[in-house]
């Protein structure tokens, strides 16, 4: 089975993230790392491969600037076989439509039985790329699931949807996205980190994929940011040390604010 795991290199959520003047994420000012939510997708791929034996091949795919390669190295250190890095100046400023187009073309070029994604990227957090990938590839989308099982050409999982928990099943080939409840991700071992250095990473650009530059990047974006503004920092209120009357003091505060 051929598995492609889509992984994104994102600005560290723990850092102070900002925007550039044109309203796109400022990637220069903070460190970036492999999106934590994509580690769950990697973990599922590795577990499937372990259960399946030698027949499973895992490739990682990322679309992003030069340093996105770091995300691929981290993934390869966890396990898997090879990676594809799509990088092109024309991709800068892409929205989910542009990103999903590039990903879809790269996935088609490579071939796949299963595409695994995280539930959302920790920077954009739209959680729509997997659905768009399925739409573009014309295959079933088993998204936002935990309790993932792959067998006999089907893929199933449990999904906490908008108003209900549903158990869903689709046939392969398919696009699957997993939540942070799908199973804890492993840490790369020292051996894994060393082995990752020798695993092949292919670099592709838009021309290699036959993607029209007008469809991606800023020119292909279908929405525009008008303004970005930092929320005014909250003014820290009164912090009292409980001397035996902390609960009563809290009740007085809530009464003053008309919650009681």
């Amino acid at each position, binding site marked *: 089975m051929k598995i492609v795991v889509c992984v994104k290199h994102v600005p560290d959520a723990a850092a102070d993230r900002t925007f550039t003047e044109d309203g796109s994420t400022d990637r220069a000012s903070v460190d970036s790392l492999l999106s934590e939510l994509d580690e769950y997708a990697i973990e599922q791929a590795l577990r499937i491969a372990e259960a399946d034996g030698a027949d499973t091949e895992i490739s990682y795919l990322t679309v992003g600037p030069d340093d996105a390669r770091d995300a691929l190295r981290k993934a390869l250190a966890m396990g898997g076989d090879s990676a594809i890095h799509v990088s092109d100046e024309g991709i800068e400023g892409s929205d989910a439509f542009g990103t999903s187009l590039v990903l879809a073309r790269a996935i088609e070029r490579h071939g796949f039985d299963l595409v695994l994604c995280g539930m959302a990227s920790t920077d954009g957090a739209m959680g729509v790329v997997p659905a*768009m990938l399925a739409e573009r590839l014309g295959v079933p989308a088993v998204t936002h699931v935990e309790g993932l099982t792959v067998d006999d050409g089907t893929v199933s999982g449990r999904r906490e949807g908008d108003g209900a928990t549903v158990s869903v099943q689709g046939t392969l080939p398919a696009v699957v996205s997993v939540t942070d409840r799908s199973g804890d991700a492993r840490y790369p071992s020292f051996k894994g980190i060393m082995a990752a250095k020798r695993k092949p990473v292919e670099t592709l650009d838009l021309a290699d994929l036959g993607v029209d530059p007008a469809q991606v990047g800023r020119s292909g974006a279908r929405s525009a940011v008008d303004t*970005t503004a930092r929320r005014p920092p909250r003014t820290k209120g009164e912090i009292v040390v409980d001397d035996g009357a*902390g609960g009563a003091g809290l009740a007085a505060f809530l009464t003053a604010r008309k919650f009681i």
Partner: protein
Amino acid sequence: MPEILVLVDHTDGAVHKPTLELLTLARRLGEPSAVFLGPGADSATEVLGRYGAHKVYVVDAPEVGEHLVTPAVDALTQLAGRTGAAALLLPSGPDGKETAARVALRLGSGLITDAVDVVPGPDGPVTEQSVFAATYQVTAHVTRGVPVITVKPNATAPEPAPVTPLVEKQDVAFGPASAAVRVLARTPRERGDRPELTEADIVVSGGRGVNGDFTVIERVADALGAAVGASRAAVDSGWYPHRHQVGQTGAQVSPQLYLAAGISGAIQHRAGMQTSKTIVVVNKDADAPLFELADHGVVGDLFEVLPQLVEEIRRRRS
């Protein structure tokens, strides 16, 4: 007046509050039409009309319940074409967002997700979003096609504007993709006696500091008529169900009052509650980062502070 399509979020015809918020927002942009998928439209029509739905398009086909997301995509895409709608509003949630994404792709339209406000603008609807763990407010608009927008719960207060809706049954041609993912079993989310987490005016949340028994949190919630929330640490420990998780990978709430007890305030938790109007924190560690957001904080043991709070609420009310 341009027609605005609103996808109705309901359980067997019981319409959820976020839909009424969508109808209220849609009235700013044009004339709302509700798109009702599945059975139960009869019991929903009255409330949809009360909040200003001039039309209710009903698609009651078996495909809707048997398959995931794609039947809604077929329905909305075809209705958008038939009606020439000026915008589509959907609820933000895994189902709403994925439906929106695929509809936008098929229509060649732009998409904005997780809006916390929508107002008319010179080039179509202008949305407001909270990003980067709610540290930034961003306004944006769609530049191509019919804007498709998903809106978070509590974006606005539902306001009635009664009309008698025209109910139209609509036939939809479901494509092969609609049959692709089967729903094997469906367990509707229980709507308990407490308010829904994302819809509540007050949320009382507990974290690892609760140490197993959430009764101490539930008592405060009930005294205040609040919903119960939980940190991921509390959920992962199995102390409370996941649908109560607040944060990046849980619910993002924006209540009038958020009371957090025994929660340290990791960035992923803050991402889900930072925009609450008033924040109250109880934690025995004076250095807990969540105190930085607190309008009122108590450094103390939650097992002493919270029961006293409940007692005092009772005393003040009697």
